[in-house]
């Protein structure tokens, strides 16, 4: 009985994740002229890849893809560069950490759409508004990524015994050397996690992207326009493309997520 219930629950969870994905796949492979056919079918009559071809061939869509990948990758780099030292400090000096907490939480407490408007004004003056290479959006996404990466990395550094760093110092490493050779490698799973989370945060960020990049768009606003203006096939193909990187990253980083890296340091 319990096993049946558990099985049912698992099936429900899997279905709730899988059904939207299947619908996206089905719609993406349905020719646009078939999209509004009645009654709707479970499978397209004439499966086609023409939607994908259109998405990738369209200059705006392809430009959006490049822009999205670029912004997400740059956001990961800038966020990690800023949070690595901050998270380490936060873990080793709790008083500093608490102050950083407060500041960083603030950026997430305010609704991002509310920050986006003044930010847009600011970027207009700075010449970053609607920048073709999305420099402004990159800065905005870094702002969003900071607290996320900070909390993940700080927890990881806090889990590294401070004695390992002290041992490295006594073994002849400088403070930076101890960080690079001992603390960083031990925080590797968290580094992978933080990279993934920040990448995905930027990848599907909508509010800033909509307001800061009015014509030089990234994928989320493009997807919104495609579906709003009645292209279910194209928007589904784009949605399918947007799902891919997440899957690829999870598969690539899977080994790094394995825990147990800290086993064996003591006792």
């Amino acid at each position: 009985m319990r096993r049946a219930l558990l099985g049912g629950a698992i099936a429900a969870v899997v279905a709730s994740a899988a059904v939207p994905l299947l619908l996206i796949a089905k719609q993406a492979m349905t020719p646009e002229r078939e999209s509004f056919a009645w009654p709707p079918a479970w499978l397209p009559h004439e499966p086609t890849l023409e939607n994908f071809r259109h998405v990738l061939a369209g200059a705006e869509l392809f430009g959006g893809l490049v822009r999205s990948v670029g912004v997400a990758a740059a956001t990961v780099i800038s966020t990690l560069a800023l949070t690595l030292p901050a998270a380490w400090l936060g873990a080793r000096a709790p008083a500093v950490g608490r102050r950083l907490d407060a500041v960083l939480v603030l950026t997430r407490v305010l609704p991002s759409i509310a920050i986006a408007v003044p930010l847009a004004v600011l970027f207009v003056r700075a010449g970053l508004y609607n920048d073709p290479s999305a420099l402004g959006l990159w800065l905005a996404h870094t702002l969003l990524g900071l607290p996320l990466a900070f909390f993940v990395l700080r927890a990881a550094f806090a889990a590294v015994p401070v004695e390992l760093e002290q041992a490295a110092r006594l073994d002849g490493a400088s403070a930076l050397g101890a960080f690079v050779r001992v603390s960083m490698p031990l925080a590797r799973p968290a580094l992978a996690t933080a990279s993934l989370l920040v990448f995905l945060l930027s990848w599907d960020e909508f509010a800033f992207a909509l307001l800061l990049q009015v014509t030089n768009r990234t994928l989320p606003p493009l997807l919104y326009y495609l579906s709003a203006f009645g292209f279910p096939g194209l928007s589904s193909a784009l949605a399918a493309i947007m799902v891919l990187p997440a899957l690829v990253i999870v598969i690539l980083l899977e080994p790094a997520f394995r825990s147990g890296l800290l086993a064996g340091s003591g006792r």
Partner: protein
Amino acid sequence: MARALLENVGKRYGDVVALEGFSLDVADGELVTVLGPSGCGKSTLLRLIAGLEPMTDGAIRLDERRIDGLPPEDRDVAMVFQSYALYPHMTVRGNVEFPLRMRRVARAERRRRAQEVAELLEIGAMLDRRPSALSGGQRQRVALARALVRHPALFLLDEPLSNLDARLRASVRQYIRDVQRRLSVTTLYVTHDQTEAMTLGHRVVVLDRGRMQQVDTPLAVYERPANAFVAGFLGAPPMNLVPGEVAGGVLAVGDQRVDLRRAWRAGASASARLAPACDPSALSGRVLVGVRPEHFAPATAEGSDQDGLSARPDPATCELLGAETLVRAALGVESVLVRLLGGGPDIPLRVSAPASALHLFEADGGRRIGP
């Protein structure tokens, strides 16, 4: 290898004194153990020497080089942590070679020296394993190897045996002793375990509440404790301390009277072997009387031993340990612990300790006043 000189070293955290006026001269190749209860400041002492915490007073020198202002990596001091602090992401070889890599020793030389110290510590077969695949005793040896591989000027050990089980502890203790003597590396060894302190150290420092209580050879610390704290801390079980009063060379404990004058003549007592004779006639007033449990012996008849303190064992409290028997005994209104040799179930009616086995300490302050 070097001589380590600590001058008046002190550490305060705000108003809290962790260590005060600590001075010690450790000879080249000497092993000094630092013994004290938890919170006595012994780990603070090591951390100050290692440079993991800044000190508030004093100076630390290795030979003529003053090191207390230097960062840890420039002090030429190696340390074995209580938790071993092995790098879990490196193999045993990576761990042992790490200090050499930090000093830019060439690869071939690194290999050779890591191999050499690994043979010495019998971990040569495990060089390619991760620390997580090793037992506690093996990790301990890897930690020792990592600290010793670069021939540090000063070697610090912070309770290195406290994470091992009792059986392993005795063999590793012997082992550390052998390695230290063979390499004759100047060593400070911090512990709360008196067996380790007594068996390993050329000299023992006893520390309490941030202050050095005594520094001397293990035997001298045992036989002539400098104060009541040391007396009550060392020995298993530790020394009995009972209040008494002394006047005109005669000690009064409860209704017993002990004439100290004869017993304290030079050469008469175990403690006097290590010190000049002391004149008990010069003393007067309230004192603390110390008697080691093992200095009590069965007494033959009532009142036959005028030159000692006698006590009445309570057979109900007897603990048979095989080679020895512990029993509580009434000494006037005080209760003392008595250690009798042999495991027999026959507890004598009376036990007594000779006057020559008594130690006197100031009633307040606890400083040793005789013999």
